[in-house]
């Protein structure tokens, strides 16, 4: 007979952790995508030379392990006397981290839009901004979506690292329960299932959108 010491309160505790994970992910993906779209559009348009400083910063964000970035950011904000909570540090650093990857996804999507189509839009009298908003970005979106979904799913799992800043998110919650209840396998399976459940809608959203676009082709 299967028996567990897990109580309803423990499940609520895990749910609270899942809530923190979702909140950080949502904030990071929102700001990261907005910034990434701006940077990606810039990089697709401007010369490599003009973009060199930005490219350098984004490369650092993509190359240095996220854990190191989080810990150093926390230390520096403390030294600078900014007084940010660990949650704010986590959101800021994860937003920047997401934007670095999103920049390349957006840039790739924009560069996939045929030049002849953009020429046609400009020839109709549209400004660069109107072409971007009405023609290029919608077309780029279709190319960039799979990569962006992958990035979002990845960021959700990367949020687990914020436990090193003392934030009690889903993974840390599960560690606390394991320490107390000594049922590591069951709790890890349960937490894995929770991660799957909160990721599932995002993965399927991508599928649904692509299905809808495919019907138009």
């Amino acid at each position, binding site marked *: 007979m299967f028996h567990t010491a897990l109580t309803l309160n423990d499940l609520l505790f895990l749910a609270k952790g899942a809530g923190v994970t979702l909140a950080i992910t949502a904030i990071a993906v929102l700001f990261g995508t907005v910034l990434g779209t701006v940077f990606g559009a810039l990089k697709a348009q401007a010369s490599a030379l003009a973009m060199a400083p930005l490219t350098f910063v984004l490369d650092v964000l993509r190359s240095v392990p996220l854990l190191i970035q989080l810990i150093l950011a926390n230390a520096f904000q403390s030294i600078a006397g900014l007084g940010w909570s660990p949650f704010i540090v986590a959101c800021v650093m994860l937003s920047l981290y997401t934007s670095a990857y999103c920049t390349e996804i957006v840039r790739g999507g924009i560069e996939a839009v045929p030049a002849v189509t953009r020429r*046609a839009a400009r020839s109709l009298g*549209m400004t660069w901004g109107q072409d971007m908003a*009405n023609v290029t970005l919608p077309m780029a979106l279709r190319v960039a979506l799979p990569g962006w979904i992958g990035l979002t799913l990845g960021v959700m799992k990367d949020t687990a690292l914020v436990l090193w800043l003392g934030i009690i998110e889903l993974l840390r919650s599960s560690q606390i329960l394991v320490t107390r209840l000594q049922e590591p396998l069951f709790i890890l399976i349960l937490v894995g299932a929770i991660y799957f459940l909160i990721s599932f809608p995002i993965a399927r959203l991508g599928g649904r959108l692509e299905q809808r676009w495919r019907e*138009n082709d």
Partner: protein
Amino acid sequence: MSVNKGEVVTIIGGSGSGKSTLLTCINGLEPIQGGKITVDGTVVHHPETDLNKLRQKIGIVFQQFNAFPHLTVLENVTLAPRKVLGMARDKADEIAIKQLSHVGLGDKLSVYPSRLSGGQQQRMAIARALAMSPDYMLFDEVTSALDPQLVGEVLDTLRLLAAEGMTMICVTHEMRFAREVSDRVAFFKDGHIHEIGTPAQIFEQPEKPETAAFLKVAH
């Protein structure tokens, strides 16, 4: 070379002779290194010229299909009037439906471009350019990428436009069409106008030997 209102000028010549480039220079898509292009008194390549505004007056249709794939045929045609001219949706729809019917696509309004044949896509591109009520239309080898059986329907549309008095510059390999429709024909070679005259002059009595040689092969 100058083109007057209501004139139809066709440009013929071999590949790489600069025909298509001329058209993209006229609407400012390509920069120029020397000389001057003016449209209604506006110098195209002057730094202070508002190219977006100028392009509202000049419609251009290219050889390659460039429909906006994420929009229906109707939306493709109403996009520029709504966004560039700030037209209200129903007024833009009215104009778009008129132009699309004019080119024979009145029954394809809610279809996506990927479902259209090449000839239909080119006719849609023509309607899309016309919806902006341009004063001048430039056609860059618009039938060259089409299957032979689809060429006729597009040329018919061009003939219709010419008969209605649109000022047109057409780069084309279709000699019969050029002969029939043009007021003047320009033969390009190595980036220069080698010879220019009426269709009768160019096709029947070309002055330069290179013109005659080209026509012999092209016919």
